[in-house]
């Protein structure tokens, strides 16, 4: 056999599993005995990207830590649909305190584990975009600044979904939410606002920052594993489409996430100590219409009074990202397997 059969393995090289790969090169999700950190029976909507992203990330972290994992959760959809009394969908040690304090709680957990000599147990903090970008921002910044030994994951669905889709600091321009309705002269959310939290995290100089989507599992798992190789504060910004809030078909959750990346609207990259070290190139570039038109929250850009001007501005944003991060640089097939390139 050739020395690099996997490099040549075309079918399914981006799929979850791959019958010809060594176990160690397969995704955690292809493993029948994966931890299912977030298990069946949860009350997330059909096609929930956050439920999917949480299991992806936590299962990968469970493998990376050999199961020595504790998770802290901010208030939000993930918390509400996973632990309504009397049922919990978690299979890992899990703590929910408040909406805005998950990073600080995680800090406390990490400190306690160190003092108690349980340093081998790692801590993950998780929140939605509201809990990370907005109300939890102060605590998160403090956690970064102190370089506390926590991997903090923001499941970004770009609005306050738990309370009924109100605008957050991560809501993109022109998007319709319950507090940025598709009415008036400039329907939807305004341009030029919102926070680029990954860049802000990088500005703290923390050891590791990465963005990812639920559409590229290999990339996501590799980043979680990578994050677990560092001590100190780490940040993973994970795009998780919300069928309810985005007005997309439940079956399109991954498709929409993929388009967010392939249009350039959501740049996927990783950074160490404040510097971008790698980007995940766009494999098949798509115009932003392909992404926007799948989502009811952008319907007002297409309907009977279409807004090509607004779409053009959004396309310009995508083009800027592509330019800024060099998202059209060629794809390295050697990276298909993930992990070993680092």
């Amino acid at each position, binding site marked *: 056999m050739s020395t690099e059969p996997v490099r040549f393995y075309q079918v399914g090289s981006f799929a979850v599993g791959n019958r010809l790969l060594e176990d160690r090169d397969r995704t955690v999700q292809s493993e029948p005995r994966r931890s299912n950190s977030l298990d069946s029976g949860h009350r997330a909507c059909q096609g929930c990207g956050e439920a999917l992203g949480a299991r992806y990330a936590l299962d990968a972290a469970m493998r990376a830590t050999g199961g020595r994992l504790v998770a802290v959760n901010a208030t939000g959809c993930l918390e509400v649909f996973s632990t309504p009394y009397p049922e919990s969908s978690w299979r890992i*040690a899990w703590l929910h305190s*408040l909406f805005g304090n998950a990073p600080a*709680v995680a800090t*406390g957990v990490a400190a306690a*584990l160190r003092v108690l000599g349980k340093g081998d147990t790692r801590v993950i903090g998780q929140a939605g975009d509201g809990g990370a970008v907005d109300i939890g921002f*102060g605590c998160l910044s403090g956690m970064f600044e102190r370089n506390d030994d926590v991997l903090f994951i923001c499941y970004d669905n770009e609005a306050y979904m738990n309370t009924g889709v109100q605008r957050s600091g991560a809501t993109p321009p022109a998007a319709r939410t319950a507090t940025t309705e598709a009415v008036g002269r400039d329907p939807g959310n305004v341009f030029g606002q919102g926070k680029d939290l990954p860049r802000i995290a990088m500005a703290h100089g923390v050891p590791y920052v990465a963005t990812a989507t639920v559409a590229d599992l290999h990339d996501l798992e590799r980043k979680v594993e990578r994050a677990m190789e560092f001590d100190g504060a780490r940040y993973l910004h994970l795009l998780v489409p919300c069928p309810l809030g985005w007005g997309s078909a439940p079956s399109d959750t991954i498709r929409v996430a993929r388009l967010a990346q392939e249009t350039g609207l959501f740049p996927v990259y990783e950074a160490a100590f404040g510097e971008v070290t790698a980007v995940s190139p766009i494999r098949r570039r798509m115009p932003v219409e392909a992404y926007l038109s799948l989502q009811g929250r952008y319907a007002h850009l297409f309907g009977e009074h279409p807004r090509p001007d607004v779409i053009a501005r959004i396309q310009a944003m995508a083009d800027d990202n592509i330019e800024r991060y060099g998202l059209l640089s060629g794809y390295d097939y050697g990276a298909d397997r993930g992990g070993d390139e680092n």
Partner: protein
Amino acid sequence: MLRQIEGSRAVAETVACCRPQVICAYPISPQTHIIEALSAMVKAGDLTPCEFINVESEFAAMSASIGASAAGARAYTATASQGLLYMIEAVYNASGLGLPIVMTLANRAIGAPINIWNDHSDAMAVRDSGWIQLFAETNQEAADLHILAFRLAEQLSLPVMVCMDGFILTHAVEGIDVAEQGAVDAFLPSYEPRQVLDPDEPVSIGAMVGPEAFEEVRYLAHLRQLEALDLIPALAAEFESMFGRPSAGLLSSYRIEDAETVVVAMGSVLGTIKDAVDARRDEGDRVGVLAITAFRPFPRQAVRDALAGARSIVVVEKAFSIGFGGVLSTDVAMATHDHACSLRTVVAGLGGRPITRRSLEGMLDTAVRDELDTLTFLDLDTGIVEREQLRMAETRRSGPSAEHVLHGLQSGPRPVDRPVP
């Protein structure tokens, strides 16, 4: 061994003897001396194993304490005033989750107008948070109560707040007997969490509870706190036998037997009150004092019994509920509702206003003569108040009262205990 040291120092050393494993704090006057001392001990390696986390806010301080406690560590923090209000959401959360965190509250007023001096408004603001609240009369009590607080908290799996008057106690240097490590170790076993975040035995802590169970959850928390009414006296007795000096319990009384008029109060003002009471006693007035240590849970029965003989009750409070009156008074009234006695509220010492023995004696004199108003504000400068009321009546845009009050002070008599701003 008795030493002449600052109250904050004594508290810090005592807390250190309790071997906290995680300390999270954010600086705010007048709590700073306590956490400065503790951070120094941790940094010097005198307090180990322990992590001192310099958090970015009080909200984070309590939140990190929650995380630490849930992960099985003994957690401590300290704050005051605005700081307590800033962490209030987490304060409720800590008790809701049943985490035995101990917090020192260096009592201080709440703005606006911003005021760094002592009163009890901050403690009252979290009265219903589900925390056990203990008020110290002296620095000796303040220090000793922390030992009892950790034991109490961990036995009940409830958070405990030790309240000590800001500056008046925290910054006062006096003779204090700081407990020995050995004795504290003997009194306070290592922390056995009721529930803990453990990968080997995973649980989901902090579920969402709906109408079908929330009331029960709250009622159970109430029962749990009421257990403290039996536990505190027991622990106090154990403390006395072990440390050879009394510890504050639920409450204590002074010259109360045969007293017709009883002054009820909490915290450091009790000392001055006792002096005033002695003076009145010398004049033949039958007055006494009831000192409340446990404000939450409120020792309703004990208060009722202690006041059984009183004809007139005067509650001296360093806080009040705007639009109504006394806060502690309400609880005392509930406890004594079936007594044939009068109850009056004296609001005193707001925002650090000195409570002088002279004023207290005058107040007692009126009380004994049954001429005290139901709600009295001690040493209120009525002149300023009337001037300000007039001014506001004249002009719609009257501006902030506080500045005018200060302005009035320049021209009016100047209390010497305050440096000119």
